[in-house]
């Protein structure tokens, strides 16, 4: 039984299908990547899992139980935490208080009585933003704010972390540290599901990758396999499928075929 099972989920906005019969899983102790071109339906999937968006069809199961009708805050209580692509930090509060609020909410009445000060500082330290602790959250750089959202999310002790483009806004060395942190977080038993555009990061930290295109999962597997998957390259580089490619083959594509494949193999 997987920690999270997304089963045949469909989301339609008006006439547009954002998620089209998507099915994938995320396991505890693993970093799972969810990748795909712009508009492939990744953030919509996150909204469905965290409860901000009702699916038109399909089921989401968490810890073996269906959560389709569970409201947002109960899903959080059950252990689904998330960050946002468009930042949702509490801008009026300090960085430290952002995390503190998360603790307060998570611990409910108990937290209202005795806030866990030590834990907060440890968390800030862990994601590497303790030097910003006293800054207002709307005054810190985006990359830092994303780390803050991660810290805030961790404060609610989730079993599953949904991270929406967590590394955008981070520089190279920060991204590297962040990758290591993600693997640690997973090794401690959490499930991590991440939407990310930095392919270096995805390929190096993810245990499993699912590729979405047109709202459909077109490929799943280990990084090397996904990288070598013809359909994935097509999705990113705009091939329709082999038959169609043959049908409109040009010299240009021949050039492309020969240059792309060796590059991928070198990495694998």
């Amino acid at each position, binding site marked *: 039984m997987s920690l999270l099972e997304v089963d045949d989920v469909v989301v339609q906005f008006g006439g547009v299908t954002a998620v089209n019969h998507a099915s994938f899983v995320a396991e505890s102790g693993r970093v799972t990547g969810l990748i795909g071109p712009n508009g492939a339906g990744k953030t919509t999937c996150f909204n469905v899992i*965290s*409860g*901000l968006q009702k699916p038109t069809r399909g089921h989401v199961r968490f810890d073996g139980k269906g959560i389709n009708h569970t*409201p*947002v*805050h*109960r*899903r*959080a*209580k059950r252990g*689904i*935490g*998330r960050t*946002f692509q*468009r*930042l*949702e*930090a*509490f*801008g*009026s*509060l300090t960085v*430290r*208080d*952002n995390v*503190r*609020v*998360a603790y*307060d*909410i*998570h611990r409910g009445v108990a*937290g*209202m009585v005795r*806030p866990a*000060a*030590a834990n907060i*500082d440890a968390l800030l330290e862990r994601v590497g933003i303790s030097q910003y*602790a*006293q800054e*207002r*959250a*709307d005054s810190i750089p985006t990359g830092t*704010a994303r780390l803050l*959202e991660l810290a*805030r*999310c961790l*404060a*609610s002790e989730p079993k599953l972390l949904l991270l929406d483009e967590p590394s955008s806004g981070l520089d190279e060395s920060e991204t590297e540290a962040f990758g290591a942190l993600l693997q640690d977080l997973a090794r401690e038993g959490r499930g991590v599901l991440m939407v990310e555009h930095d392919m270096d990061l995805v390929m190096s930290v993810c245990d499993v990758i699912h590729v979405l295109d047109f709202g459909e999962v077109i490929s799943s597997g280990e990084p090397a396999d996904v990288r070598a998957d013809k359909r994935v390259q097509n999705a990113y580089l705009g091939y329709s499928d082999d038959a169609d490619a043959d049908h409109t083959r040009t010299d240009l594509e021949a050039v492309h075929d020969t240059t792309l494949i060796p590059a991928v193999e070198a990495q694998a």
Partner: protein
Amino acid sequence: MSSFMSYTIFGLFSGAAYAIAASGLVLTYTTTRVFNIAHGAFGMVLSFVFWDFSVRQGLPLWLSLVLVLGVVAPLIGWFLQRFVVRGMGEGPVSVSLVVTVGLLVFCIGLATYVWPPEARSVPPFMPTSGIQLGDTYVTAHQIITILSSVVVAVLLYLLLTRTRIGTAMRASVDNPELLKLFGGRPDRVAALSWAIGISLAALSGILLVSVVGLDYYALTLLVVNAYAAAMLGRLKSLPLTFLGAMALGLLTSYSAGYLPPDGWLNDLRNVIAPLFLFLVIVAMPQAQLRVGQVKGIVSAPLPSLGKALGWGAALLIFTALLTGNLSTANLLLVGTAATYAMVMLSLVLLTGYGGHVSLAQFTFAGVGALAYAKLDEPNLYGLLVSALIAAGVGALVALPVLRLTGLYLALSTLAFAVLMDKLVFQADFAFGFNGTLQARRLSILGTSITSTGGYVLVMTVFLVLMSLFLLFLRRGVLGRVLIAMRDSPAACGTLGLDMRWFRVALFGLSAGMAGLAGGLFAGLRGTIGANDFQFFQSLPLLLLAVVFGVTSVTGATLGGIGLMLLPVLQSNYPSLAGLMLVIIGFGAVLLARDPNGLANLMFKIGRFLEARFAPQLLAKLPVLPGRGSILDEVDEDPLDASFDHNQEVPAHVAP
């Protein structure tokens, strides 16, 4: 049968007038996302203008009509869109609410100033004509009104579907950015819709004025009917809006005709519209959580507890000095200021920290006062129970609209306030129609406080305690969670917070604070009635709170003094009474975009001065006492408080 017919005709007549107003409201709301609370107020002002043209200046009727509907109203609409509400639709709904409440108060002030109270009347159109329909006589005015609504409906339909600019209006509802890429001008489209909207408000006002009379408030509030009708169409659908308006007109007319003339059912006829509004709002679907918030809203600094205590003590000592020297009349004023300041503190909690706009805060104070007078337990226990009753009522208002936020929540408080004003407060079991109740002054631990000076001091103690409580709250878990909820509801939800119950508790607590103030106020005055807690008073209260700063305790205290001074200035300079409202309304329109208000501006100036002149200032401080007023006294508070806050940051960090 004939009476049924005439009720129907009257219902259709008023329904038609509501429909005209409501379609204007829907038009402006859909194209610019700004809900114009002042829609009716503009109808009222323009009815006065119409009176001025046609009766006072004696212009021909048709010319006055053309001038008002074709020139003055569109100009006002254009001006509003261009300079007041532009770009406000994308901002937080609390800002546009406060601004349009500001416009409402502005309009009432303007009307009172330009056309001071005197007997005026506007005759119906073609007063001598009419037709006999069976047993029923239908006046020409009624026919004209019903026909006007049909013409308005047809013209709006043609405009919106058959012309390019009308199509652009509908397009800009969907996506104004895309319209720009097409080469359309959303601003021009919005200006046109405001021009038409205000014109329709004027038409509706002019058609109703011969029935309702030229009254500042009646015409303004008649628009609650338009809100109700517009809400039935979800503020989107014009056909449903027309349907809602007609249904409401008929319902009001039938209830006037058929409800028994005595008992509570009789009172019910006055509140059909707010009741209708409330029910329609309750039936609204779940609001979506907003995503994409980055900038924090609350930026007033938080004083340290020590400093807050110090300034609280200073305020107490100052009041104590005052009580020794002031006449009873002036002491009553100080007590009133303390009451208002306390009610504003309840707004700091609800609006400043919580981000919800309440248009019924004074009504909650009224509930507290009523409970206090009825309980007749002039002691701390009685006061506490009164506050609890007000809190319960506040929670009850929030309960049915648990799922809603922003505009709908605010409108439901408006409906509630009107209901209380017209139905409950005037009922026999409450204050009674134009009646009053006696309330005795509080006794604390067996010591009764009879002198006005002593009582005012006790009120100040409560004010200080309430401020400290609020600062304590803001500093603690609840305050942080509140502000977090205001900044990002979506994040709070995904962190596990059930915001619905939190919101109910927040409304309850805030209403309880207002209720406590109301109870104390009842004791101060000794005699209180429904007139002390009129619905309209909540509006300047909200505006002054925002102008002075609804995110800080200092702002609330200053606002309380300001609101107390308002009637004083009005009675001292009656000719300027309207002007005061004009200024407040205008101030709110100017300052609403920053809920931190004047208080925060002072904090900023304070910090700047502190940085430059701190040593000299501190050296001179002991020389200052003796000079001045409360204003001076409080003025210094934020300056020091904020300075202190900055210094104390390291201590705050320590676990």
